[in-house]
């Protein structure tokens, strides 16, 4: 992990310190808690889904910089997108963390692509995927 200075980059730090989507969402119609016992990351994801489109989303809770920034970047990406598109992007993200996604696919993740180096950091994988796994479970639940 010698390039760790590069890993904790401006984009990640900014999403950690000033998360745009970390707040309550009173009109949410879905809510799910995600917990990572390794780090103690504990978030609750909240979504408002209408006609199969993620109209709004937010999260509350606490955790390490990777978990918080990852959840925030994810919401930036999926808000306004159809459910299927959000699930497709989540799939790309989860494959990226396993080191199995192509460069072009990673580009589709926009800022969340900065987390691709987590694929070389086994201790932090659970932190990075926490928000995404929670989203995936939520969207797959409501048919």
């Amino acid at each position, binding site marked *: 992990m010698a390039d760790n200075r590069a890993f904790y980059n401006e984009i990640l730090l900014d999403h950690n*310190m000033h998360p745009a989507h970390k707040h309550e969402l009173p009109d949410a119609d879905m809510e799910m808690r995600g917990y990572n016992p390794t780090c*103690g990351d504990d978030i609750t994801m909240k979504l408002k889904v209408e006609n199969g489109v993620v109209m709004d989303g937010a999260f509350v809770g606490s955790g390490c*910089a990777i978990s918080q920034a990852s959840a925030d970047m994810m919401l930036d990406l999926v808000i306004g997108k159809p459910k299927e598109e959000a699930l497709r992007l989540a799939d790309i993200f989860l494959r990226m963390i396993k080191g199995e996604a192509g460069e072009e696919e990673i580009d589709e993740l926009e800022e969340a692509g900065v987390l691709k180096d987590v694929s070389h950091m086994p201790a932090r994988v659970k932190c990075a995927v926490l928000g995404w796994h929670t989203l995936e479970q939520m969207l797959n639940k409501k048919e």
Partner: protein
Amino acid sequence: MLNEKELLAQDYKKDFPLLAQLDVAYLDNAATAQRPLSVVEAERNFYLRHNANPLRGLYQLAMEATDAYEDARVAVQKFINAKSEQEIVFTRNTTESLNLVAYSYGLSHLQAGDEIVLSIMEHHSNMLPWRMVAAQTGAVVKYLECGADGSISEAAMEQIITPKTKIVAMAQVSNVLGCLNPIEKAIELAHKAGAVAVIDAAQSAPHMAVDVQKLDADFLAFSGHKMYGPMGIGVLYGKKELLEAMPPFLYGGEMISWVNRETQEYAPLPHKFEAGTVNAAGAAGLHAAIDYINSVGYEAMEAREAALTKLAFAAMQKIEGVHIIGSPKWEEHKGIITFTIDGVHPHDIAAIFDADGVNIRAGNHCAQPLLDYLCTGATARMSLAFYNSVEDVERFINSLQTIRERMGYGR
């Protein structure tokens, strides 16, 4: 005895091949220590020259294997000043030792309404076995609370230890706060109440002399791997009369005198508690670790660890946003300094240290109830051993000073 300056100038890392080769500041000694070459060689030597199944074979090699194993037991007996080598049971580690006491002594001696007193700072391994005993027998677990500095008052102990108490379980040194607990008093009060005292010495044995007779401990457990010995070998000390009255923990080979279709007689102590093929190479390694500790001497080890703790402590207190958990006095941290940094999650702290070649621990340190009680949540922990150097501490401090800035604060 060397003075502080001479002591800090000593190079102990030359005895530890990993530390001599790797460019890291290894400050996770409370999790596991490094091993000197002599320990690795002792294990190797067992397999290369004396390997056979100990305790049973009737040929030369098997007798050598038995000797290596039993010599290690005598070394442990002397190391903790037990009355008899029959009071030394080899296990895998502290956790197994404590489970042995809980399953064997706890389940056979406790009943509904009895009380088990645990300090709130116990490692999960001296807490969960007792909660199992409580769940199975109807006994009640009572937590002995400490101050924010880790201190346990005599008054609190006197109040909680009563004639209903059957077990008092306490760590000699906390793996989170690094404080030295008043176990002598706890043992005395336990005995007055008719209870037995179970001492977790996992974090004390690597750093200070432990004398079970002086302490009058009933049971005392520690691990080889935290005291520069191999992983997979641990010790349970138990008073002979207690061990004798206890049923076996594990059943099988090498723990019996004879077996027929209906009945059996268990082997005498300590083999009654050592079912199956034992870790003789590990025991030989532990023997070498004890010899190594004796060659350096606890006095020198403690003095050097104290000097390094003092250095780290003073520097940490000056860094903005860094908070030390536990006592504000460096003297009350036996080589363990647990801390938080404002706004930076401990796992991010550990990752940044890692990038700088500094190895520390982050998380709950297997003592979640304590951290809940102190309301800190996850924390970071640096833990020293005598072989750490002034350079290791400086490297830690230099890195620590940059962490908040690297996480985006004050830019």
